[in-house]
């Protein structure tokens, strides 16, 4: 230890001179200079001179340092890395630097004026130290601290330390109780309490350090040499206090370096150790701060760091113990040999302080990390508690599986919802376009169903009748049935009858007259007239194909439903009619059917016209419209035809003739199914074409 200490001393002296000359020079040169300075200083310890020089330099340096620090801070990852490397390279150095230390250092660095410790502290507090310039910062901070201390000491007027004896200075400082508080307050505003708790001798040390403000460069340079120094005393120092104290110590050492003749080598060595440790710690702290404060990237790295830190801490603790032992020895020596009881006390106090600071710093860092770790562990425990073993694993696996799925699930759900919405829209449109449902809405289906039921009933009757007959009677019945069927034969759809509405109305009226039952088709006609008005008022450029088509479907469905209803009514009325004329009824029914068919065809034609005019550009559209029209046309024909046959069958049944009503029924049902399919088909095609048109 002694040898190393002396070496450190020398380097420190050199550093002093160098630092004075140029702080900006590289660390190595600074270190070399430091060594030289230290030696020189040890040789000639003119405290006053040193102080004066230091103060002057410090002020300058501090300014320059600050500037450079800021620059460095703003962006040197490389610096950080270097720092880390430096740490790694220094096995002796316990790398634990607390954030507090860093902050304090930075703060101190930032503050140019020594007396403005408070201000500095504020700055420190305000500023999250980017502390990327580990060494530089450290140096600066140390320097600043030193300057601060110096200023305070100077202000206290105690600092006029004569070359005569550094001891006297130190003694004076210690003796000056006044100083202690001042220095403490000034130096450790941020640290505050800790500093207060620090023993008086520490304060004096701090003062000394201030005096040694010139030492900043030493610290900088001293990464290597300082490390050893710092290690002794500084290992513990993690807090600003520690830093400051370290700086002080180093300063003391330097000053003492001159005193080395007195055999304070041990103290010096401790001081150097402390300085070195300080620097290391500071650098580490900076790195930590940097890593921690600036979006720390990899948790793995953090964990590694944590481990390293723990190791470091252990090392530090060991070092601290060793240091303390050394210090005690040195103290003893001092006491015995030089009677520097105060000094030894001071040193011990400093070491204690540093230890305390370090511990607190460690606690802070470790505590934070440990807290995180414990939280994580606790979380895991809680998670695993009720579900040990495989279940747990499964749960976790599931969780892992679910996690990525969640977003996907959301996406899928969204897509699904959109699809459903689309489907709903389609459904609404298609519903509107659905002839069947429209037809049902107008009770066309129910009437048809009721009609069918009636037909069945009559069919049963006819069968029983024909079954009761035999021979000629049966023949007769069959003949009659055949005649009736011929009577009911609908004229083949002669498309020539593009009759006007008036003609159709006439037809219907005459037919109703002939059939002599109380049915009316006013409803149908009025419905068509309404639709016609709608069509005429339609503005082709505004309306949309779907609208027209929808309206067409609606009107046609309504007309058909009305027709069915009236057929149904007619059938019912014919069945309860007392005086019947089969031939007349058949004729009128045929007439009625053709009239209604032409009415519906007329309506369909009108709609098709409009649609064609609207969609004249698209052949497909026309085709579709024609298709629809034809579909309805045909349906109505078939339907009415079968209807008539049915009704005719009824008539015949009442006159005790057999008829093939069953065939009629079958025909009806067949037509129905045909109708269904065609209507579905047509509406679907229309729907698709509508989409096509929209797309086009």
């Amino acid at each position, binding site marked *: 230890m002694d040898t190393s200490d002396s070496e450190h001393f020398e380097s420190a002296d050199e550093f002093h001179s160098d630092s004075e000359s140029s702080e900006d020079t590289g660390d190595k040169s600074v270190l070399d200079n430091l060594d030289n300075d230290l030696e020189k200083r040890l040789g000639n310890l003119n405290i006053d001179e040193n102080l004066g020089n230091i103060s002057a330099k410090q002020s300058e340096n501090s300014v320059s340092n600050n500037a450079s620090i800021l620059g460095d801070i703003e962006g040197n990852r490389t610096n950080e890395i270097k720092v880390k490397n430096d740490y790694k390279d220094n096995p002796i150095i316990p790398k634990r630097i607390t954030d507090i230390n860093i902050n304090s250092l930075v703060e101190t660095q930032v503050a140019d004026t020594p007396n403005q410790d408070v201000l500095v502290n504020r700055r420190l507090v305000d500023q999250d130290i980017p502390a990327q310039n580990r060494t530089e910062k450290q140096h600066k901070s140390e320097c600043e601290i030193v300057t601060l201390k110096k200023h305070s000491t100077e202000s206290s007027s105690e600092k006029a330390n004569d070359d005569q004896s550094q001891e006297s200075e130190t003694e004076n400082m210690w003796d000056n109780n006044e100083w202690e508080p001042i220095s403490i307050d000034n130096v450790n505003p941020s640290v505050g309490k800790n500093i207060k708790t620090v023993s008086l001798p520490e304060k004096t040390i701090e003062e000394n350090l201030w005096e040694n403000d010139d030492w900043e460069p030493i610290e900088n340079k001293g990464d290597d040499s300082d490390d050893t120094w710092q290690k002794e005393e500084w290992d513990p120092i993690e807090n600003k206090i520690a830093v400051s104290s370290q700086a002080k110590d180093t300063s003391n050492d330097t000053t003492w370096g001159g005193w080395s003749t007195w055999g304070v080598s041990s103290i010096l060595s401790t001081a150097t150790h402390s300085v070195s440790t300080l620097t290391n710690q500071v650098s580490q702290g900076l790195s930590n701060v940097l890593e921690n404060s600036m979006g720390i990237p990899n948790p793995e790295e953090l964990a590694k760091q944590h481990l390293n830190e723990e190791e470091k801490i252990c090392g530090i603790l060991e070092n601290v113990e060793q240091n303390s032992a050394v210090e005690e020895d040195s103290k003893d020596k001092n006491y015995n040999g030089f009677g520097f009881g105060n000094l030894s006390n001071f040193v011990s106090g400093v070491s204690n302080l540093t230890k305390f600071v370090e511990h607190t710093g460690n606690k802070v860092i470790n505590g934070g990390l440990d807290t995180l770790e414990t939280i994580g562990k606790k979380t895991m425990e809680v998670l695993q508690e009720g579900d040990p073993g495989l279940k747990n694993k499964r749960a976790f696996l599931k969780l892992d599986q679910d996690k990525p799925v969640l977003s996907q699930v959301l996406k899928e759900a969204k897509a699904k919802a959109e699809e459903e919405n689309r489907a709903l829209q389609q*459904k609404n449109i*298609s519903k509107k376009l659905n002839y069947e449902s429209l037809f049902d809405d107008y009770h066309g289906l129910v009437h048809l169903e009721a009609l069918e*039921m009636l037909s069945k009933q009559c069919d049963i009757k006819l069968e029983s009748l024909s079954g009761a007959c035999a021979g000629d009677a049966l023949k007769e019945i069959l003949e009659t049935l055949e005649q009736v069927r011929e009577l009911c034969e609908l004229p083949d759809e002669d498309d020539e009858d593009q009759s006007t509405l008036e003609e159709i109305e006439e037809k219907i009226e005459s037919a109703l007259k002939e059939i002599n039952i*109380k049915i009316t088709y006013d409803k149908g006609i009025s419905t068509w007239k309404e639709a016609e008005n709608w069509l005429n008022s339609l503005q082709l450029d505004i309306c949309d194909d779907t609208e027209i088509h929808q309206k067409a479907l609606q009107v046609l469905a309504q007309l058909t439903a009305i027709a069915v209803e009236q057929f149904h009514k007619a059938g019912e009325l014919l069945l309860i009619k007392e005086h019947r004329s089969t031939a007349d009824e058949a004729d009128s029914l045929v007439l009625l059917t053709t009239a209604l068919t032409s009415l519906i065809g007329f309506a369909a034609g009108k709609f098709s016209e409009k649609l064609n005019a609207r969609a004249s550009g698209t052949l497909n559209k026309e085709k579709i419209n024609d298709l629809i029209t034809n579909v309805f046309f045909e349906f109505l024909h078939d339907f009415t035809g079968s209807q008539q046959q049915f009704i005719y069958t009824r008539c015949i049944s009442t006159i005790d003739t057999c008829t093939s009503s069953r065939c009629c029924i079958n025909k009806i049902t067949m037509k129905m199914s045909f109708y269904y399919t065609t209507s579905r088909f047509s509406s679907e095609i229309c729907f698709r074409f509508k989409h096509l048109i929209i797309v086009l």
Partner: protein
Amino acid sequence: MSYAYLFKYIIIGDTGVGKSCLLLQFTDKRFQPVHDLTIGVEFGARMITIDSKQIKLQIWDTAGQEAFRSITRSYYRGAAGALLVYDITRRETFNHLTTWLDDARQHSNSNMVIMLIGNKSDLESRREVKKEEGEAFAREHGLVFMETSAKTAANVEEAFINTAKEIYEKIQEGVFDINNEANGIKIGPQHSPTNPSLPGAGGAGGSQGSGCC
């Protein structure tokens, strides 16, 4: 539009007891004091909700005239519910209940729910049939009884909906075979005919229907 079930109702009873008015009140919520004689059968439909299921009531309002009796009888088939209506101000309509009931029982399925309704309860001053008599008749023949007024809409909704509830309960109990349309129950449309890609709406009725099986 889409429904889980369709129940077919028939309304039977003497002419002039207010069958068509009951239907109009139920479907249109209005009262028409003068009503044309019904020819054969008229239809009404309304959606109701039972057990959060949409149910379409398709009501066949039959003609009460004797002349249509033979025709209306053929409409009984396939009814899930029947409203047997008499006029509390006309005792003969009450006296004819047995005939109607026999007709209905004969031409419909045995599970048909029949609700006895004494209509025109608003004409209390002209009441000829006591409520107790109606209750007794219903009790005797296993019917549900209710006095209604198509004019004031009193109990009209309840008459239709309670019947539907009873039918629904029978479905749940498995009494009705809903796959047999002769029972007057149809399952809602599985798919809209024009939309093969419509599992949503159509599926609702379908799944509900299958769930009841």
